[in-house]
């Protein structure tokens, strides 16, 4: 019961999805399974919230260091949840004015909207934006050209950084001062080998880096990852990898 049934569930679910791609008759099964999956994903959201609250409640009840902040988290969580679930301050949907619960939960001016607009947005956005500062200190203190590999990486990064701003064009403005015979010419009169110094402009060089070496490197990584995913998925579908079933 504890391990066999889940194993069978995983294998059947996986194979249904697999064959639904190849056998039109099974398409419908695949759709049903996915619909359940998407509904179940909400269950995972509830579980995530539940785990969070459980953790912080524990902190509060044991009065561990910093439990006051955990209390703030809990109050904010339940406050948001309650206001959102009760659709506080939400007017009915104009199409169905006589149904008082029919409104949009995030209607402009409603309670949840207020929390979203004035708490969720500034807090999450600023939290993430702090990385701009860390990247600056890391640039000064950590990114060292200590070997060929790191040097290549940093030079490429520098070109891309300049190439993705106006500096890429501006730094090469002096090319316009040169006569065309110097900026564009054919090497030793070989017609098929045109040399164009404008291609060295950082913005064009960046595009070249992205389209040639970056595409190649990323392609190699992508193919590798794809094979890795095939291996992990197959281990689950064949029932040889059971680590998700836990120990007991």
């Amino acid at each position, binding site marked *: 019961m504890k391990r066999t049934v889940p194993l069978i569930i995983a294998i059947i679910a996986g194979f249904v999805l697999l064959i639904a791609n190849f056998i039109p008759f099974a398409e419908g099964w695949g759709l049903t399974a996915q619909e359940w999956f998407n509904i179940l994903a909400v269950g995972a*959201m509830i579980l995530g919230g539940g785990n969070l609250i459980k953790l912080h409640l524990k902190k509060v009840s044991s009065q561990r260091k910093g439990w006051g902040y955990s209390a703030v988290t809990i109050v904010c969580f339940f406050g948001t949840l309650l206001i959102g679930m009760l659709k506080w301050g939400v007017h009915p949907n104009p199409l169905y004015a006589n149904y008082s619960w029919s409104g949009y939960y995030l209607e402009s001016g409603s309670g949840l909207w207020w929390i979203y607009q004035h708490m*969720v947005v500034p807090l*999450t*956005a600023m939290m993430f934006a702090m990385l701009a500062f860390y990247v600056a200190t890391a640039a000064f203190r950590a990114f060292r050209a200590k070997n060929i590999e790191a040097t290549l990486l940093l030079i490429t990064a520098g070109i891309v*950084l300049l190439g993705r701003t106006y500096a890429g064009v501006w730094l090469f403005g002096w090319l316009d001062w040169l006569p065309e015979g110097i900026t564009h010419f054919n090497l030793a009169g070989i017609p098929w080998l045109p040399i164009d110094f404008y291609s060295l402009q950082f913005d064009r060089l960046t*595009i070249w880096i992205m389209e040639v070496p970056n595409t190649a490197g990323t392609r190699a990584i992508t193919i590798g990852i794809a094979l890795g995913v095939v291996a992990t998925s197959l281990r689950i579908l064949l029932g040889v990898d059971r680590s998700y079933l836990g120990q007991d």
Partner: protein
Amino acid sequence: MLHALQNLDRRWIFLSMLIAVAIPILAKTVFPEVVSKQAKMVFDSIENLPDGSNILLSYDFDPASQGELLPMAQAFTRHCSIKGHKQYYMALWPLGSPMVDLSIDTIESEYPDMVYGEDYMKFDYKAGGEAVIRMITQDLRGMFPLDSRGVPLDQIPMTKNIKNIQDMDLIINVSAGDPGTKQWVQFAATPFGLTTISGCTGVQAPQMYPYIPEQLAGMLGAIKAAAEYEAAIDAVYPSINDNPKAQEAKRRMGPQLVAHGLMIGLIVLGNVIFFVSRKRGQA
């Protein structure tokens, strides 16, 4: 001197970054943009569709990334609206739904002729990520019984004859991570040959290049590409020039230039200190 630099309080660096970004914002510096190939490809995939084509716009990002992605999302909305394309909005991220609302606000205030349900509409957020993409490539109603205003799809003119997203002429995906562009490529663009373009964060952009042009018809990577795309729209539809909101990405390139310069300066300075001190250490 060297010692002082080695032990520099990092708050000086924080401060220099703050100033590098703040000054161009306050000075409202704007630089000219050259439209690159990628931005042109994205522009063309919307521009070359016949007017009134069906376009699915999936907003898979949240407020944390809106600094990078909102300008291009709004530019997509404006371009589609100018062209009179039918726009179907959806979100695979729980916080993506309010991002769609911002685009809907843009349509309502700047293109008042467009009618909800005939020219544009919005689907709710649905959980499940790539499983949602897979599902709607075959059955839209199974996932979305109603639109976000609670109306069944059969009663909405735009969706009445839409069975699944294979009926779309173009998929636009604005993505900040997972689920995002990679999942759209894997589960919609590649298996069904649906034309897809993407606007994504700088973190993801380099990883999307191998998909271009076969699996991804074009991609806007981070704020620079958004600025180029805005410039491309300006060039063809000069009337949009007067709208300051349509120039948001271009405005943000000012801080980018100064901050990128600062970054390179810091890396160079840091390495100089590193090498000099290593040499002295050996001597």
